Structures are given as C-alpha cells and as structure tokens.
C-alpha cells in the first residue's frame, strides 16, 4: 500500500498484492489471505464484501498448500472489484466437474484430521465469486481467477 495514513486517497488507486505460497506449509497458512483482508479493511471496503474475499482467498490459498507444490496468490484491488489469482505448480486437477462437487476431496488422512479436505473449498469459492475461472493441466499446475465486485460502491 502506498499511503498507509490516507484511506480516501487509497480508494482511487489500484493496489496490487502478491504472496508466495508454499505447498505443505501449514504453519503460515492463511497469512496471505489475512494480509489481503487487512488491506481491504484499511481502505474501507464493506464488511460483506470483505467476508466473501476472505473466504475465497483462504480456500484458494489452502488449496495450494494442501494440493500443490508451490504457488502464488495475487490480488488486485480497485474501488470497483477485487480480483484474485491463485496459480500453482502441482498435480493439476483431472476432473474439474468432480472437484467442484461438494464433499469430493483427494486430501490424505492426516490433512483431513486437521479439519481440511472437506471438499468444500472450490464450492465455497464459487459461491463467493462473481466470476470464477479455473484452468488446470495434469502434472503441471492449476490457475484460478476470482472476481468479486464491489456493488455497494457509491461514487
């Protein structure tokens, strides 16, 4: 963020954030999403929109940590919308239709015991997003793009 003390000035700017996300690193899991959430709070985005961004970003971040080797979570914030890209190097998704079904998960047992792997991540993202795109190549990786519009925008 360029001007940490003047939220109004920030409102007219485009803010870009980028975080590296490491597969298997559960200790710092969620940090990228929390930073994005703090940014939105700082510039005064409505709470309902922040919630949707937080849920979508967290599920996308966790999918890199749970399922991929490494990746990056990027966000672009404007007064009109928040766009999130989650791009990873990893196994990719063989059957997207199956992966989008609530309850479908390939997460191993030790991850399920932590309360992940409920198979609700991608459905949660879809529910929160105005635009949701997924591109995946088996053995190479997965890219998702999420757009959430700021409909309560007044000016």
């Amino acid at each position: 963020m360029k001007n940490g003390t003047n939220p109004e000035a920030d409102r007219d700017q485009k803010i870009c954030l980028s975080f590296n996300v490491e597969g298997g690193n559960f200790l710092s899991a969620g940090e990228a999403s929390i930073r994005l959430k703090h940014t939105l709070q700082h510039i005064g985005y409505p709470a309902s929109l922040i919630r949707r961004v937080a849920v979508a970003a967290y599920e996308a971040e966790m999918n890199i940590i749970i399922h991929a080797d490494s990746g990056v979570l990027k966000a672009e914030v404007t007064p009109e919308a928040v766009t999130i890209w989650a791009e990873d190097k990893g196994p990719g998704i063989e059957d997207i239709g199956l992966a989008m079904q609530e309850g479908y998960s390939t997460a191993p047992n030790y991850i399920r015991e932590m309360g992940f792997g409920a198979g609700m991540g991608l459905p949660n993202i879809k529910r929160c997003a105005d635009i949701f795109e997924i591109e995946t190549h088996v053995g190479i990786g997965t890219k998702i793009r999420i757009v959430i519009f700021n409909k309560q925008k007044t000016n």
Partner: protein
Amino acid sequence: MKVKELVAALDLTVRSGAAKLERDITGAYVSDLLSDVMSNAREGNVWITLQIHPNIVAVASLLNLAAVIVSRGAEPEEATITKAEEEGIVLLTSREPSFEVAGQLYRLLHKG
C-alpha cells in the same frame, strides 16, 4: 452477551486475547471442518471446536470471530496460542465436550 460473561458462566480458561473480552457475541457455530466454518460462521460468533493447530487462528481472524473455544480438555498447540496472541484472537479452553459447551451457550444466548 459479552465474551467475558461467557468465560465466567462456562468456567472457561482464557489462553489468549485477554484484552478483547468486552466484545459482544452474535451467536455460535460448532464444527471441526475448517471450510464448513469458513462458509457458515458469522462475524462475532463463538466457534466451538476440537481442532488445536494454528490454522484455527487464521479462520477466526478472517471471519472476525469473537472467540474460539477448544473443547473437551484438548490442549491448543504452543504455536496456536502464540499466533492467537499476535492476531488478537480470543482463545478459550473448556474441559466439557463440544455438545455440553454448545448446549450451555445456547441456553445463555436464547434465554431472553
């Protein structure tokens, strides 16, 4: 109802976030599945769970929950307590199982 009233009524132990006990509770959610909590718990809710790892702090922070209660005498990991302190999350523990904690909280929240 404030978090500090909940702590007293249910005889909970405050493990982090002692400065944030004045907050009002908007409701509660019971689940050990993180994605389920992400999609169903609401701002200001108390989350009752058996999970003890640091990821519960990220979930509580992202949803702006009023408190997390780790139930059935489970001991939060050291890293969980440290992270909760850093993020300003109220982390509470109870000896009672989730069902009992939820039942007591339900009565308190819906009595008037």
